């Protein structure tokens, strides 16, 4: 074996070793690396003693209500299986609308309503001009 082959082998073995180690670390922290849980998973945690956590889902169409003259809003977050009622006081992001993916931070109150302290809009990876979007909507 030439010295440079030894060095190449050394690098490869080290890289593989560290990759395995990092894979193990990341997979054992899987739950903490998830930025949010779905409404179905959130429902299971409803009776737990809670600290703040995040739920991500779609704003159910027709569920959005805002108290006139205030920043207080109410909407339902759904993943198509379960849904969670959310209460939030504050300014909503530009992309907030019904049918949109949203991430809320907060916890459940005694009425099983999720009291959000932060609302973030999740953007999807699709980009298109308005006319093409309208076309897609009408064909689907």
């Amino acid at each position: 074996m030439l010295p440079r082959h030894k060095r190449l082998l050394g690098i490869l073995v080290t890289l593989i070793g560290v990759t395995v180690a990092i894979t193990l670390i990341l997979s054992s922290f899987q739950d903490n690396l998830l930025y949010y849980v779905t409404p179905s998973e959130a429902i299971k945690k409803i009776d737990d003693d809670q600290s703040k956590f995040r739920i991500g889902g779609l704003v159910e169409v027709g569920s959005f209500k805002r108290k006139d003259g205030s920043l207080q809003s109410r909407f339902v977050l759904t993943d198509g299986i379960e849904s969670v009622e959310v209460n939030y006081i504050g300014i909503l992001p530009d992309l907030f609308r019904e049918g949109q993916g949203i991430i809320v931070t907060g916890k459940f109150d005694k009425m099983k309503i999720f009291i959000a302290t932060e609302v973030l809009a999740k953007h999807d990876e699709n980009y298109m001009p308005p006319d093409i979007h309208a076309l897609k909507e009408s064909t689907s």
Partner: protein
Amino acid sequence: MNLKKIYKYGSPPNFYRFAMKLEPWCLSLGLFLIAIGSIGGLFVAPKDYQMGDAFRIIYFHVPSAYLSMSAYAAMGIASIIGIVWRSNVAFAVAKSIAPFGALMTAVALITGMLWGKPMWGTAWVWDARLTSEFILLLLYFGYITLHATIKEQKKADRAASLLAILGIINLPIIHYSVVWWNTLHQASTISKLDSPSIVGEMLWPLLLMIIGYMIFFIGVICRGGSAEVLMREKRSNWVKEV
């Protein structure tokens, strides 16, 4: 493959001459493509149906994020070549990539924050994509600092290169973070070739920008790498001739 031909460029004077020839072409062609791409992205491409004009920041965010990772891959490969073949030119190239890569990472993070603030409602969250890209910035800083703190050239090269090589593991983590974990950051748009999620009239300026950044980057390597080679070889005869 004729290995001898490649080895030829590993010799400092040959690399220097080759890089000096390539540099002006890459820098000017790169800038030209970036200019066309910017005009296309900022003025020609249509508005997005949801984000309006704000989506146009994609034309700077995606190319710089893309380059932050490609530059790191290039730095990692140069480091491996440097260590395995004891190539001074490869070490010089790796060292010259680091500041540019750090700059691209910073630009990607900053444009992302400017985009996130109005659209998501926040400039920064510690989700998997943003965190792993931030770690990339730290890796670049680590490489630069490590290289700067060790006085002896050979030791500095070896130590910094080892860090660069270990950091390669972060690249697939950045790329797949949006697939492996729930993140606030959206999934990839153009790297899934089967069904591009962006219409053609929005896509072409983006591709021009990415190719322009790439070619410009090669020019930057030529410039930085050849300057670094000159520094390292300042006592040799061929440098005195140029």
